[in-house]
């Protein structure tokens, strides 16, 4: 299949993430399987420092974030050549518990050629190299959530 006709969607948006519309956009006539990851705002966290969350406020370095999402999609295609469509979407702004904040969708002809692994890789990489940050507001105050990944030259 020619890479040029494979749909790749990446966006930073303040709008609701519409899974139905995004899935449709990464579905080709040859597509038989999709793996979709979504992250949501957790209102109640138990692992580590157990606490409640009122909301998260996201910001992004938008033009660079879109370029890095494109890079994540390119990395996915290099690792799993069976992947047909890829969507990578991050919602920003003030987001409340239970709200989907991020989506990675990968499609392929069949379910056994990497769609699950590709979606997992996509969310892991987004959290490493795509310039987006969140500030958490809780009953006990507010703090910036900081990642721990230091990009290497060429990333």
């Amino acid at each position, binding site marked *: 299949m020619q890479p040029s006709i494979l749909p790749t969607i990446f966006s930073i948006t303040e709008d609701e993430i519409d899974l139905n519309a995004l899935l449709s956009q990464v579905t080709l006539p040859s597509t038989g399987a999709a793996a979709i990851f979504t*992250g949501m705002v957790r209102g109640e966290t138990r692992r580590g420092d157990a606490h409640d969350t009122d909301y998260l406020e*996201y*910001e*992004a*370095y938008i*033009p*660079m*974030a879109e*370029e890095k999402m494109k890079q994540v999609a390119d990395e996915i295609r290099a690792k799993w050549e069976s992947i047909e469509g890829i969507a990578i979407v*991050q919602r920003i702004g003030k987001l409340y518990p239970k709200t989907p*904040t*991020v989506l990675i969708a990968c499609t392929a002809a069949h379910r056994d050629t990497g769609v699950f692994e590709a979606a997992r890789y996509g*969310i892991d990489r*987004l*959290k*490493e*190299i*795509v*310039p*987006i*940050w*969140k*500030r958490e507001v809780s009953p006990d105050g507010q703090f*910036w*959530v*900081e*990642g*721990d*990944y*230091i*990009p*290497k*030259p060429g*990333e």
Partner: protein
Amino acid sequence: MNHVKLLFFATIRERAGTRTLEMDIPEDMTVQGLKEKLANDIPALKESMLSVLVTVNREYAFDEAVIPPNAEIGMFPPVSGG
């Protein structure tokens, strides 16, 4: 001198008290040199400059990189999207 535009995000933005800053820097200034200049010029950023991530024209850049003219320079903590 090279004219450059700085973009601050998250904690760096809050400590800098601004989202953007334009300045002229020496033509041979490296990323390391710029971090030292900011630590010196803006005391609130001094500590942040020890661990800040820096991008030049939307690519991650490292201490020894020389900053080109009209660079768009991003400065921020490790990312935490998702």
